[in-house]
């Protein structure tokens, strides 16, 4: 059962996100448009990570890899003159999904700390691959000549249009995710996290479901990467650096793992906090760091878990 406080928070939050462009236009602060678009892109990445991390209990420490693959899947075609988003974006999702399936097929045979480290290892391999390919910018990365094109229907160079595209994708993801985690597939993933030996004893071959979830999460992570290069109009291998994986993971945990809206809240909180603190002092991290520690020590279910009347972890 979702509590009233949560529904209200959710609706208010989504409404606020929807109204950001209006506020930005009225106050003539296009900066907000940019900031919140970035926040939503990371929210998409965080939600995709939480599908495996929170719902599936698979502590993947290499999620930035899919972000990177998605980014390259936009930038490389663009480098060779293919600017159509209808090519780039599906390519981003397919490639990162396939990479996730391959990585998952190896990693899911291990568990615990080994799993954390092996997913990290694969992401680091891709990172070093990225920084050593000179043709595609090596560690300097490359500029995106222009944002993805959608045949004149959607013009992403218009910041407002791009904003609502990202907003729409986030809403779609939350809606589809909500169906998925409650459908048979999602129930299997969640139950396998809760008690894997029991799942096997009642007859589920959990591996194939976990692997599928891994692939889905990778594909969505790839989409977030495609959006991110369009956002920054730049690509660097640092999208795949392990600290980036750590940041996405922090957003998920900060917001509340095992929920769909928690990671969104976590992305908003993390990036807003970064923004606010950095405006206040250049040494904002010296405040943010201990804050994270306090969240772990005292708000064990994340920010979403702090909302009142929370009775059960729900979508």
């Amino acid at each position: 059962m979702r509590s009233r406080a949560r529904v209200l928070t959710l609706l208010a939050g989504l409404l606020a996100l929807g109204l950001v462009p209006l506020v930005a236009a009225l106050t003539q602060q296009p900066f907000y448009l940019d900031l919140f678009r970035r926040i939503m892109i990371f929210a998409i990445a965080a939600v995709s990570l939480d599908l495996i991390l929170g719902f599936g209990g698979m502590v993947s420490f290499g999620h930035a890899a899919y972000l990177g693959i998605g980014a390259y899947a936009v930038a490389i075609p663009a480098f060779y003159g293919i600017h159509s988003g209808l090519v780039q974006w599906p390519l981003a999702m397919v490639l990162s999904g396939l990479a996730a399936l391959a990585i998952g097929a190896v990693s899911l045979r291990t568990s615990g700390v080994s799993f954390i480290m092996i997913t990290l290892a694969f992401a680091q391999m891709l990172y070093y691959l990225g920084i050593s390919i000179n043709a595609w910018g090596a560690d300097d990365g490359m500029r995106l000549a222009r944002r993805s094109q959608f045949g004149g229907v959607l013009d992403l160079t218009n910041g407002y249009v791009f904003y609502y595209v990202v907003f729409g994708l986030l809403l779609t993801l939350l809606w589809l995710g909500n169906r998925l985690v409650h459908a048979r597939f999602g129930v299997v993933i969640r139950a396998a996290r809760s008690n894997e030996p029991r799942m096997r004893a009642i007859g589920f071959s959990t591996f194939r479901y976990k692997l599928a979830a891994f692939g889905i999460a990778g594909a969505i992570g790839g989409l977030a990467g495609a959006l991110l290069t369009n956002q920054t109009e730049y690509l660097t291998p640092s999208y795949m650096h392990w600290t980036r994986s750590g940041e996405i993971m922090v957003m998920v945990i900060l917001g509340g793992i095992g929920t769909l809206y928690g990671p969104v809240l976590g992305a908003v909180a993390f990036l807003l906090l970064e923004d606010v603190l950095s405006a206040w002092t250049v040494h904002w991290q010296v405040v943010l760091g201990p804050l994270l520690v306090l969240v772990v020590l005292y708000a064990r279910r994340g920010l979403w878990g702090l909302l009142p009347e929370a009775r059960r972890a729900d979508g």
Partner: protein
Amino acid sequence: MPTAEPLLAVRGLIKRFGGLVATDGIDLDVAEGETLAVIGPNGAGKTTLIGQLSGDLPPDAGSIRFAGVDVTALPAPARSQRGLARSFQITSIFREFTALDNVALAVQAHAGHSFRFWTPAFTERALREPARATLERVGLGARADVVAGTLAHGEQRQLEIAMALATRPRLLLLDEPVAGMGADESQRMVRLLRELRGRHTIVLVEHDMDVVWALADRIAVMVYGRVIACGTPEAIRANAEVRRAYLGEEVPA
């Protein structure tokens, strides 16, 4: 021994952990419909035996035939699909799901693949109704919507049985079903198991001898990874070797 092949036939089952031989060449036959109790002191290898029967532990040697098929190499999910269900010594449930959800999952496991991404599983009548019926059967009907982790210990043990039953098993492996229960709770569990007896084939590992005497058609006694005696309750009671080895008493000859 009846001419028909037993439902479960175990031959020469060996499992080693380092230098320790947990099961040391076990032979067992369980006929369709009978209840076999496995008893023995702590560390005799009973739980290791259950683990090998359910498919969680690969044996080092020996074979397990179930319903006429060699299942020695099959993993646990595949054995469950063939009708072999187990309960765990330490309660093993999905704590954050409701009792009904727990059982519905067991039904779902045997209702085709679960690559279904759209319809909410917890409102599917095809899963809920058999699950509810099974809960009623074990006496948890009134507790269907309670979060499993908050059920009383005895109720969680009943839920374990319900999950095993919901897979429509041919053979139930029960690992100490009354472990850690109070007097009332264990009486309720024995009543439940007595109802299942005869309708299902049961292999029961149990310490509580009251439960064993109440349920078993036959008893196998394990010591040091071997079955030292197997027979009717009367024969086991009268067996001096069993008393010496298991009950540890210097029995007057």
